């Protein structure tokens, strides 16, 4: 029986209080705050960092499905990048699921199908969303950024799949055309009533009917929450007790995290599930997906758990900073530098899964993997070694000269656990609190867009 083997989430460190947005536009604050991706994060890096949370070196998987409505590429696959960072074998199947808020649950269903069909024994579903709302719109207070990853396998692990059901439904409720920058929604209650409410009810009914489960038997129900109250009416109509059965959506603390939301909520549900608990997960958008799971009650490591990810945060000081992170305001003076797809391709093994070299003679671990040992000049070739994702700060500087949307840039020499030094930028940190010897963890980030494309590499941040 197919199931969920592991789950992890990745919430950006930054929060923007809704009050700050409301004050900017003279609007009413909806309360709480939303998670905001740092300027060096996008849906891809959020998904990668969630996937890395599944295990120190990432999980072995024979397929990677990336789910998002906001891929950093309009043409080019992001799942291939994720597979490369996780050092998966070339035979891994990679695919991007996009175009609808239900991409997260659809990727999960496709993964379960692949396992059922025997083409894969482990499927990584890595979701990330970073939806940019139109300034001075209700969506701007609502949308939040996050990543979540599920590892699906042939065994139950955390939960086994009991039943699945999908409904396809043509409905122009929320959309974004090729030429539009911000998602749009038809004004008023049209979608709530005739899209969201009707289609979710149909999917819930459908999945429960397949396995003859009564609504009251469900321990937890995950319903998408475009607003904090939206799921209430649907739950009631479906014969559920919103108070007892509905999973908290984290709308107040993180916002509507888009295609990631159902997976993020599922992670939270699994964290506190007891053995035998039935969990219903629903994804909505141009139809709906519904999955019923039976939890095994197995414990989830807390590090990448939802509570911890929500708790560790920094408040963005201003709307202006947020606007620069999301490129809602542009600077024209930014240097036009180039990049090289050639070098990035040639160095891919060092840049993405972060391999260094170990000298066979003197044992020195080094980055990059030089042809000749940097320590003893042995020319017999270094052996490839995957570098640790943790280390401590050897030295640093806060650089006010380098152009950045979030100055100063902190350059850091990191002494990695197990050997090797990296020279990277620190991110998600308070520059004035950076100190030599502080423990650091690596995080995968977008470095820049020179050359007209996304250039990714690693940074480090305080543990």
């Amino acid at each position, binding site marked *: 029986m197919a199931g969920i083997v592991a789950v992890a989430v990745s919430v950006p460190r930054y929060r923007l209080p809704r009050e700050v947005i409301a004050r900017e536009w003279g609007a009413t604050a909806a309360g709480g705050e939303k998670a905001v991706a740092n300027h060096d994060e996008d849906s891809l890096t959020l998904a990668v960092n969630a996937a890395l949370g599944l295990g120190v070196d990432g999980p072995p998987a024979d397929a990677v499905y990336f789910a998002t409505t906001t891929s950093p590429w309009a043409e080019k696959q992001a799942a291939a990048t994720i597979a490369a960072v996780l050092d998966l074998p070339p035979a891994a199947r990679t695919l991007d699921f996009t175009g609808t808020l239900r991409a997260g649950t659809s990727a999960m269903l496709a993964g379960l199908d692949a396992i059922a069909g025997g083409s894969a024994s482990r499927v990584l579903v890595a979701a990330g969303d970073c939806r940019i709302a139109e300034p001075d719109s209700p969506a701007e207070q609502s949308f939040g950024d996050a990543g979540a990853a599920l590892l699906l396998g042939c065994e139950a692990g955390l939960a086994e799949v009991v039943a699945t059901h999908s409904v396809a439904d043509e409905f122009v409720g929320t959309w974004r055309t090729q030429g539009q920058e911000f998602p749009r929604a038809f004004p008023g209650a049209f979608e709530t009533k005739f899209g969201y409410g009707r289609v979710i009810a149909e999917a819930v009914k459908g999945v429960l009917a397949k396995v003859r489960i009564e609504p009251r038997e469900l321990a937890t129900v995950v319903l998408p929450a475009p607003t904090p109250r939206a799921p209430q009416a649907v739950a009631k109509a479906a014969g559920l007790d919103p108070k007892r059965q509905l999973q908290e959506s984290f709308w107040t603390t993180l916002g509507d995290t888009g295609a990631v939301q159902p997976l993020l909520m599922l992670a939270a549900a699994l964290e506190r599930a007891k053995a035998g608990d039935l969990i219903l997960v629903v994804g909505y958008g141009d139809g709906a997906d519904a999955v019923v799971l039976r939890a095994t009650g197995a414990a989830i490591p807390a590090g990448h758990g939802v509570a911890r990810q929500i708790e560790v945060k920094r408040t963005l000081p201003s709307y202006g900073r947020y606007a620069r992170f999301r490129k809602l305001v542009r600077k024209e003076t930014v240097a036009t530098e180039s*990049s*090289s797809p050639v*070098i*990035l391709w040639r*160095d891919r093994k060092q*840049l993405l899964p972060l391999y260094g070299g170990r000298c066979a003679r003197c044992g*020195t*671990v*080094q*980055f*990059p993997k030089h042809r000749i040992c*940097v*320590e003893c000049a042995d020319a017999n070739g270094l052996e490839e070694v995957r570098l640790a994702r943790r280390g401590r700060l*050897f*030295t*640093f*500087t*806060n*650089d*006010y*000269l*380098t*152009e*950045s949307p979030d100055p*100063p*840039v902190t*350059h850091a*020499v990191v002494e990695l656990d197990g*050997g*090797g*030094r*990296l*020279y990277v*930028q620190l991110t998600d940190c308070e*520059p004035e609190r950076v100190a*030599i010897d502080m423990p650091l963890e690596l995080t995968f980030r977008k*470095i*820049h867009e*020179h*050359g007209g494309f996304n*250039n*990714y*590499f690693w940074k480090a941040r305080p543990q």
Partner: protein
Amino acid sequence: MNIRDRVAVVGVGCSKFGEHYDRSLEDLVVEAAFEAYRDARIEPARIEAAWVGTLESGYSGTALADPLKLYDIPITRVENYCASGMDAFRNACMAVAAGMYECVLVLGFEKLRDSGRRGLGTFGTHPVVGYGTTAPSLFAMAANRYFKTYGVTKDALAKVAVKNHHNGTMSPKAHFQMEVSEEQVLAAPLICSPLGLFDCCPTTDGAAAAIVCRTDVARSIRPDPILVKGLGLAVTSGEPYLKPGFAYTGFPATRRAAESAYEQAGVTPKDLDLAEVHDCFTITEILNYEDLGLCAPGEGWRYVAEGRASIGGEVPVNPSGGLKSFGHPIGATGVRMIYEVCQQLWHKAGARQVKDAEIGLAHNLGGPGAVGCVTVLANA
């Protein structure tokens, strides 16, 4: 082979250093070269070969041939990061010592103010590794490590800036003739923590020149040529930040180059009457004291604080004002240091003259401490 006493400097020249928005590279090169010709009392036609040092303000031998109309002779461009100028001098000395030429020209220059760039550029060419690095950031990381290792704080650095700005007030060709106080230095805006604005050398335009001859020829040109006693160059990793075990409290390239130069010259740091060293940032000068053997490791901050590096001190360091006050047009700097040491040894340094100077050292550092170049000069 030892370089000692085989070649000598017979003339030097230096343009006014500064922000020359109204002057071209050609203007600066001609100013420096013709001062050197006049100083040596030779005609340009006497020059048999030339070396030109620049990081990026010109390419190939034509960078010198065209402004000076110095055609039909061998000219080589040398680039070795910020040590380009002194390495050009070193290559010229070796060619003369080898017997190929009797009289050659060395000229270094850089025209930084024609671009609106903030500070010096980065060294890396990789699309993502080392992205965003700036010149001050590389030395600021050394400062933070030095502070951590020896329990020193930022005010130790300020003393270098105060000293070098003071010396600069007596240096008419320097970029700045301006005293600064320790308080001003400490209150300046941060550039790369812990380095503030006054911990950094300025962005300067300038050119400097030297004429090098075989020693016997030099003596026929002037009675008091300055003898080249030792030349050292060492190149270490250009990526020290990735090198396991790199301590970041000094630069091995300087140590190796100095050992070599001292050995050829047959002198020790104690014999020096003055030193012109590469103070691109205040921390660099402190590390240089230690790497050049003027004091023990960890004692550099004390060396300046106790006045031992001041004019009148143990070994006056940067009587010219150094990069800090004289300015740092990259390719020019190494040659400008030769210019200053010669002025001092000829006792023509005016108000900043080091009394009875006979032996002087010049030290040029390139990249993130990767290229060390040391020259020892002495009176004949």
